[in-house]
C-alpha cells in the first residue's frame, strides 16, 4: 500500500520533471550568460580551464560558500561525534605487511599528487576539491593500514583554518586593491596556459586544496575515532 502510493507520487513527480526537462532539447546549443565565460574567459582570466575560471573567479563567491559548507560539515560532524558513544561493531584486523609498506610508500606520493592537481587547477581538469580529496585519501590509507597512525588533529584544524582564512583574505585583498571582493586582477594575470597565470586563481585553489585536504582528513579521523569498548 505504502509502496504503491509512493510510486504513484513519484510517477507524477517524474512526469512533471520530465515535462520541464523536455523543454530543453538534449545536446543542443543554448547559451546564456556562460557565453561570456567561454568567449571572454581566457582574455579576462588567462586560465585554460574554463570551469576553474568560473568556479574560482566568476562565481568565486559560490566556492567560498562551498568551502564554508565543507568546513561546516566537518565542524558539525566533530561537534556531534564528540559526545557520541559510538562503538565499532565489527572486528578490525591488522593490515598485512605489504599493505603497510605500500601505504607508507604511497602516502607522500599521494599527497604530492593531490598538490599537483590543485596547483594545476587552472590548466587541467581538477582543482582544489579534487586535489584535497586525494590528499585526504592518503591520510585515509594510512589510517586503514596502521592502527598507530594518528594525524595531529590540532595541527590539521589549525592549517585548515589558516587556509580558509587566507581564502577570505585574498577576497578582502581584492576588495581593497581590486575594487571588489575576490577580484582577480590584484596580481598580474600572466600568460595563457602557463603555471604562473590566471591571477589569484591558483592561490585560491591552493588554499582550497589544503583546506579540503585537511578538512576531509579530519573528518575521516573523527568518524573513525572510537570509544574503547568497556
Amino acid at each position: 500500500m505504502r509502496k504503491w502510493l509512493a510510486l504513484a507520487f513519484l510517477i507524477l513527480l517524474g512526469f512533471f520533471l520530465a515535462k520541464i526537462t523536455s523543454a530543453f532539447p538534449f545536446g543542443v546549443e543554448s547559451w546564456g550568460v556562460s557565453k561570456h565565460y567561454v568567449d571572454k574567459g581566457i582574455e579576462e582570466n588567462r586560465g585554460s580551464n574554463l570551469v576553474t575560471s568560473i568556479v574560482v573567479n566568476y562565481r568565486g563567491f559560490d566556492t567560498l560558500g562551498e568551502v564554508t559548507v565543507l568546513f561546516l560539515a566537518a565542524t558539525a560532524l566533530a561537534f556531534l561525534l564528540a559526545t557520541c558513544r559510538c562503538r565499532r561493531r565489527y572486528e578490525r584486523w591488522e593490515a598485512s605487511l605489504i599493505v603497510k609498506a605500500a601505504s607508507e610508500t604511497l602516502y607522500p606520493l599521494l599527497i604530492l599528487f593531490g598538490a599537483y592537481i590543485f596547483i594545476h587547477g587552472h590548466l587541467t581538469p581538477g582543482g582544489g576539491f579534487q586535489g584535497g580529496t586525494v590528499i585526504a585519501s592518503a591520510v585515509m590509507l594510512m589510517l586503514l593500514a596502521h592502527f598507530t597512525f594518528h594525524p595531529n588533529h590540532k595541527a590539521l584544524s589549525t592549517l585548515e583554518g589558516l587556509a580558509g582564512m587566507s581564502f577570505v583574505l585574498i577576497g578582502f585583498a581584492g576588495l581593497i586593491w581590486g575594487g571588489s571582493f575576490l577580484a582577480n586582477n590584484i596580481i598580474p594575470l600572466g600568460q595563457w596556459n602557463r603555471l604562473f597565470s590566471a591571477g589569484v586563481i591558483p592561490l585560491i585553489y591552493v588554499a582550497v586544496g589544503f583546506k579540503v585536504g585537511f578538512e576531509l582528513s579530519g573528518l575521516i579521523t573523527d568518524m573513525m575515532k572510537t570509544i574503547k569498548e568497556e
Partner: protein
Amino acid sequence: MVNPIVIIGITLASAFFIGILQAYAKVWARVIFILTLVFDLLASGIVFYGFLSGELARPISVKIGGFPPPIGINLLVGKAEAAMAVLIFSVAFLGAIHWFVKGLPQPEGKAMVLFLLLSLGATGITFTGDFFNLFVFIEITSIAAYGLVASSRTKGALEAAFKYMVVGSISSTFILLGVVFLYKATGSLNMMDIAGKLLGGISSAVLALITLLILSGLLVELEVFPINGWALDVYQGADPVVVALLAGAAVKAFYLVFLKTAGFLPLSSFFSLALIFGGSTYLAGQFFAWRQRDVRRLFGYSSVAQLGLLILAAGFFLNSALASQSRLMIGAAIVLLIFNHSFAKTSLFLLADNVKGSNVEDWAGTLRGNPLFAFSFTSSVFSIAGIPPMAGFWAKVLLIFAIPRQYSWAVALILIGALAEVVYYFHLYRVASQGEGKEAGGNLFSPFVSSLLLVVSVPMVWGIFSRKLSIPLNGQVLLLLGISLGIYLLGFSRPLQWLGSLATLGYGIYVLLPHFKPDLSGFFLALVLFGGGALLIATYPGSKKLPSTFYPAYLVVVFSMAGVVLSSTWLSLFVFWEVMTWSSFLLINMGEGKKAAWLYAIFSAAGAYAMLGGIYLLPSLRIGVGKVPGLLPAVLISLAFLVKMATAPLHIWARDAYGESAHQFTPLLSGIMSKMGVFGTALVVVYILGVSSNPVFRYFLGWLGVLTAFFMTLLAVFQDDLKKLLAYSSVAQVGYILLGVALGTPLGWSASLYHTVNHFFFKALLFVAAAGIIYRVGTSYLPQMGGLIRRMPLTFFATLLAIISLAGIPPLSGFAGKWLLYSALIEKGWIFITVVAFLASTLAFLYCFKILHSVFLGQLQEENFNVKEVPLTVALVEVLLLLPLIILGAFPRLLLDPIDKVLSSLPGLSPAPIHYGRVMGAVTKLGHWNALFLMVFFAGSFLIALVFFAITSARIRKVGQLDVGYSGEVPRSAEDLHFGYGLYEHFRKAVGWLIYPLVTKVWKGIYEGINALAEMGRRIYTGDVNTYAAYVIALSIIILYIFSGVK
C-alpha cells in the same frame, strides 16, 4: 557606509579563526565570537540606517569577483535586506548571550562556529542577488541548523534533526533543480537579470513549472501546512537557543527570499497559491495548538501560524491588481509581523528554557514572584496575540484594513485565527499565573531584552502607523495612560500608589474637563471619571496584598474607558476598547479564579474581533458618517458590546470574572465597565442601525435584554456566594438597560440612561460593601456570614438602601428608573417582553432579601464575633454612594434633565415626554408619582419609628444570641440557628429546571468539539520521516498541477 560583503567576509573569517583558536585559547574564541556578532549587528545597523536616513536611496548592488552582474555574483541589499540582517544579528546576539549564561554545549568552539555560520547563512540568503548562490547559502544555513539541532541535549533532538535533514534535503533538491532549469530557460542566474527578462510576466508553462518547483522548495522551509511536521519536531526537540535563532531569524530570511522569488518570477497564480497555503497554514497552526501540552511545540504551532499569516500577506502584497496604497499598508504589516514575531518568539523560547519540564502544567506559578519573567512573558504574549499597544496589533489592523472588500473572507479567516490564538496563549497565561509561586531559572537577560525591544518600539510604531491609518487617538487620553503606567514606579509603597492614582485621576478630570458636554460621550465620561474616582478611594483596604501592577492597570482601565467614550472614529474606539479589555483582564487575573480571567479573555477577544470585522465592513471609519448597508456590521460590532454587558448567551464569563476578580476592582467592573457595553450599543443603535429603522433587530435585542434579566435574576436567587450573586444581579440589571436601549423610544432611552447611572450607584455600593465585608470576614460564602448587622451597622444601612433602590421600591432612586422603563414598554406595546420583565423584577426581591438575610440578619457566627465595621475608606465611599440614592429618590429631575439634553443631541431622538407637574412629580401618559412627597413620607415614617424605638429601647432586655432559655430550650453548645444555607431550596424544586446550565454546556460543547477536531487534525503529524517526505512530494505535485495550468 559599510560594504555588505564585509559583513559576510568578516563573519566567515572569524568562523575559520574560531576553528583555530578553540584548540589554543578558549576564552579568546569566545571573545572573537561575541565581537563578530557585535560587529555584524553594528555594520548591518549602519547599512540600515543609511537607508533610513535617505543616504542610500536605491538598493546597493555589490559585485563580487570584479565582474558586474549577471556575469559575476552580486549582493543586492536594499532596505528590507538591511533590516533583515539587523534582525538576524540581533536575535543571534541575544541567543548567544543566553547561551553563554546557560553554558555552551561542548566542544564549545564548534558550537560557536555553527552558530555563527547559521546566522551568516541566513544573512547570505537575505543578501544574495544570485539564485545559485542562494542555494549555497540555503545549504550553509541548513547544515548549520542540522548540526545545532542534533547537538541539543534535549530529548528528541536527534530525531528532529534527522527529519529536518531529510525534508530539508528534498527541499533543497527542488530548489537546485529549479535554479538550474531557470538558468536553462532564461540563460541567467542573476535575480535582477531574470526579473528583467520576465518583466511582462511568465507566459510559458515550463517557466511556470520551474517557478513552482522553486517555490515548493521554499514552502517546505516556510513550514507550510501540512509539510511542517519537521518544524514542529525541531521546535519541540531542539535547544531553545537554536530554535530562537531558527524561528526568529532564519525562517524570516527564507520568507524574504520567498517574497523576492515570487516578485522576480511573476507568476499569475501566485496570489491564489499564497492565499490557499497561507490561510490553511495559519488556521491549522492556530487550532492544532489547542490540544498541545508541550509548551515548545505549542510555540511551534504558533510560529507556523504566524508564517502562514505572512504568506497570506505576501499574496496580497505581490498582487499588482491591488491599489498601491493597500500594498504599502500590507508591506508595513509584513514588516511589523516579522519584527513582532521574531522578538516575541525569541523571548518565549528563551523563557521556555528557564522552565523546568516541558508541559503546560510545568509553567504553573512561573509568573508569580518573578517580575522579569512575568514582564517578558506578558509582553511577548500580548505582542503575538496582537493586543494594543504592542506592534502586533498594528500588524493585524494594517493587514486587515488593506485587504479589499471582495476578499473579506480572508479577513474573517485572520480574525478567527487570532481568536484561536487567544484561546491557547491565554490558557498558558492562566496556568503560568496561578498556583504557588515557583522558582524559574534566572537566565532572563535575553528574553527580557527582546521583550523590552517590543515594548520600547511601541511609541515609535504608534507614531508611524496610527498616522498611516489616520486614527485620531485622543492625545490627552494617551498622555493620561502614560502617566498611569508611571504609577508603577511607585510600586514600593501601595499607599503612595493609591495617592498617586487619586492625583492622576484628579488631573485626568481636570484635563478632560472640556469634554463634559451634555451629549452621550460627556454623559458616560462623567460616569467613568467620577465613578472611577469614587471607587478608587475604596481600593485602599487590603492594598498591601495588591500586586504593584494593580493601580496602573486600574487607571489604564479608567482612562481607556474615557478614550472609548471620546472616540470619534470606530477604529480608535476599538483601540481603546482593546486596551480596556486587556488591562481589565490583568486585573481579573489578579483575583482568585484564573479560569474566569481566561473565559473573560476568550469572550472579550471574540467580541473584539467581531467588532473589528464589523468596522472593516463599515463604509466610513468615522462614527456617525455614511450610510451602512445591511445588518451584518451592526450585528458584528454590537457583539463586542453584548459580551461586555454579559448578555445571555454570552454571559458565562461573568459570574466568575465578577465573583473572583480582585475585590477592589469588581465595583468598577460591574458599575462602570459593563456600561461601556451600553454606550457601544447606544452608538450602534443611533449611528449604524438608526433609532427608528431595523425594528426587528431591535426587538431581538429587547428579547436578549429581558431574557438576560430574567435568567440572571433566577441564577442570582440560587447563588450562595455574595459576589457571584451580585454578579448575576449586575448582569440582570444591565439586561434591563439593554432593553431600554432596544426600545429606541425617547422614554426607553431615558429609562436606560437613568438606570445606567443609578445602577452604578447602588451596584458599586453593594460591591464596595461586599469588598469591605469580605475583607473583614474573610469569605464571600453567604452561609458563613449572618448577624453582621450588630458589627457593621453602617454597612447594613448602606446595603439596605442600595437594595431598596435595586428592587425599585419607592422612595429611593431605583423606582424612577423602573417606572420609566415600564412606561416605555407599555407605550411601545411589547407585551410579552413586558410580562417577562415584570416577572424578573418580582424574582429580584428574592435575592435582595437573600443578601440582607444571609449577611446581616440572624445569628452571628462564632468566628465573626470580633469582626469590626468596614475600613474607613470603604465607609467613606459607602456614604458617598449612598447620598445620590436618596437625593435622586427625591429629585429624579436632577438626572432626568441632563438626560433630556443628551437625548436631544442624538439624531433620531428627542427629550422624553415627561412633564414635571407643579411639585417634583413626573407625569407621563400612563400616570404620575410625586417623588419628593414619597421621600418625605417615607423618611418621616422612618424617623417616627426610629424615635419610637429610641424611647422604648430602655425597656428592652438584651440577651446574648445563644441565650434562648425563654423559648424553653437550653442549648448545650453553640448551635447553628442561622438558615443561610439552602435558603430557597424548596423554590429550586419548582423552577430549578430553568437554570439548567444549557448555555454553559453548549459553549463547552463547542470548545470541546473544536478540541476534538484539532486533535484529529494534528494526527497528520505522525512523526514518521517517510510520511513527512511523502507529504512534501504530494504537496509539490499538487502545487505543480494546480497552479501551473498544465494538464
